[in-house]
């Protein structure tokens, strides 16, 4: 029986992407960008430590809604190697693909799995970004309220 250690990353060379139009907003909500820019990266203002964390939340929201969004211009922010740092994401990515297509064959092509994930992120990210835009509260609290409500599930 395979263990977590046994998980092989079929997405090593795949590109994780976000719509170019959203890239600036994505950067501002992550500690990675703030740290790179020499700015303080208080958790309250940057609820996501890495770009991939926010991308993943976007994927989950998009998967919950069930609609991928076609995007003309993409920005690649990292390669799929990053997924191995949180191997559960590999399993969940594949699960999302199977659930989305209703067919286990969906995992046969890793590139199409990642393409689907990117498109789902394109659906979820604008909602996430919009939810933390209220100047009356810090993004971390707004993000918590938004995700905890899971209202997008009913969209």
């Amino acid at each position: 029986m395979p263990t977590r250690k046994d998980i092989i990353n079929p997405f090593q060379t795949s590109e994780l992407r976000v719509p170019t139009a959203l890239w600036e907003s994505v950067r501002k909500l992550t500690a990675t960008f703030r740290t790179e820019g020499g700015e303080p990266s208080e958790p309250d203002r940057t609820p996501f430590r890495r770009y991939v964390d926010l991308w993943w939340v976007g994927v989950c929201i998009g998967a919950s809604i069930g609609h991928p969004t076609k995007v003309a211009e993409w920005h690649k922010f990292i390669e799929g190697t990053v997924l191995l740092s949180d191997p559960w994401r590999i399993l969940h990515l594949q699960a999302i693909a199977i659930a989305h297509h209703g067919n286990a064959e969906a995992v046969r092509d890793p590139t199409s799995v990642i393409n689907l994930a990117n498109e789902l992120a394109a659906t979820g990210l604008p909602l996430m970004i919009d939810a933390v835009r209220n100047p009356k509260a810090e993004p971390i609290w707004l993000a918590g309220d938004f995700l905890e409500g899971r209202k997008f599930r009913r969209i």
Partner: protein
Amino acid sequence: MRLLSAHVKNVKLLRDIAFEFSTDSKRPLTVIRAENASGKTSLLTALTWALYGTKALEDPAIRLGPAYWPIGRPCLISVDMQFDHHFTSRLSGRLTSGEKRFRLIRSVTETPREKTFDRSADHVELFKMSERGAESLDSPELILDDLLPKEVRDIFFTNGDAAMVFISMRAGRTSKRDQVKDAIRALLGIGILEVSEDHLTRVKSRFAKHIAEQSSNADLVKFAKALEEVEQRAKHAAEERKNADRQIETLSRACETLERKLQEMLRAGDYEQLAEERRKLFLSRDRMTKIADDLAEQHRELFGSESLSWYLIGDQCVLALRELEKLHKRGIIPKTAVPVLRERLDMGKCICGADLGGGTPGRLAVETLLREQKDADSDRETLTRLYFGLKSEVDDWTERENTWANELMRCGSNRVALLKQDEELAREMESLDRKIDQIKSSGIEDLRRDFEAKRRALSVQQDQRNKAMIDERVATERVKELSARVQELRLLDSKLRTLGARVDVSQDLLNVVKETIEELQQVALKKVASRMNELFLAMVGADPDQRGLYRRATIAHNYEIVVETADARTLDPDLELNGAAQRMLTFAFIWALTEVSGVRAPRIIDTPLGMMSGSVKGRVLELISANEEGNRELQVVLFLTRSEIAQTEAVLDRRAGKVVTFSNSDHYPVDLVNKPLVEEPQILMCGCDHRRTCEVCQRRSDDLFGLATR
């Protein structure tokens, strides 16, 4: 006069305060509960100013409006009061009496400048209120002076500290007697006699001058001129002395206030100890900041966690697993057939028992099957891994579906709780900082500098007074000598007989007036002394520590207040009475003055019970609120601190008709518990009485006084 209500706007920190006075003759006390710097003196100033105008202000050069008022912006200051006045008059030979109601509005505009301020003239309106409405009255100041003569102002509007002037050594013995004499003279209301005295003095001088001008005797001319000059000098010296006395009084009071502030600062705590407390608080806050940072990091980690993923797409994982289970049922996964077939080829025998030896049809079939499986192997391995990976997680996912939401809530609650703790620590820190600031050299040094400057000014005034006293004494002696000499020479000159007779007559009249005034004063003095004695003995009788020590308190013919002990010794109240007995004596004197004056007006006393013990305070309150004669106009307004009120609550329950509490918003967070909902510093009023406290007035020291929360 009986006060009904007052509405004060913009007097010092009294931005907008309106309240009613007790008009219940059985409960004649109105109590304003307020701690130091909480508006007591400002209210006293406001009421005094409303009734007597700017002249009555202790120092008209000091602004009446709020200190922080913006430069250049006019500030409208006003006091709106209502009061009743009981009158008695004789109409057509019949005595009638009744009550009139008045409304008084005094207002003024102050505009702060860089270092000074502009103040407009007072605007005063007095209305007679009746069923027909409000009738505006002419000459309101004259009417007010008739209702509440200015001479008795300091007796009816006073404070515990100022009253000490009658026995305090700061004024000097002569001045103390003068103060007592002036107080008694004031309550007699003998203005006409005083004007006569002044007039006759001037008439006598004029006649004396005529004598000098018309005499042919060179000596007489010389002596008369010298007499005139010396009389002027004596008068001038007397004025100088009185002026110096007033200055000494003002400066002494300022010195006492500064000294008290210095003491309060030093009592605020040991600087070293406070600094150590602050250091500990700082370390606590530092630790708390680190914990808060860790918690914030944990909070952020939640947004990249597996539990969030399960929370958001757990249902998708379940769907995927169902698809994989279908493959499992069909035997496509797990990928176990290939190793088994290889093992059987190696063994040369199938599970079903068929021969798989070299060249057998069975072996060929198995080898073909193994080749076909090879391509699908990679996908099946992926699916197998996914199947087992999801299966173990999904099985217990339903039980921990809300794990992430719970973690988020716990983390959020912890952060909020920590934030509150940090706010509490910050408040403590602020409170400590204020205490430290109070002690810090700048504050104390400023006060000390101010104190020393006042002390030096006081010393200069004392020198001037002593010099003036000597000048006055020398000049008075010289006046006597010259008068006698002029008298002798005048009698030798027959031409001057008529003028001389006029001088004599004016002198005789002057003597009559002076003696009349003195006689009236002595009569009043006896009445005041008698009542003062009664009150003093009643007060000390309530004090177990002083009971039986004193036989009587009296005022001598020379207007000196003295106390006799049970063993017939005479004590100087200033030097030989303790603080509590001094307070009782001055209080008894002031109260006796108000009673003997016959003026029926509210008595307003700021901080009267300082230094007195609980039983004495209670007795004093009983005495001043007793109304056995049913006097409708008996009204006593007291400004009391919580410590003055302590142990008098039962008396106040019975005798206080109205009680309100003043709090200074600026006392948060050092003394006040709750943050006031106002932006600018100001006095806040609430309806809390002597037994209660509320969100507005609750102080950190309230536990000491057993107050109930409203």
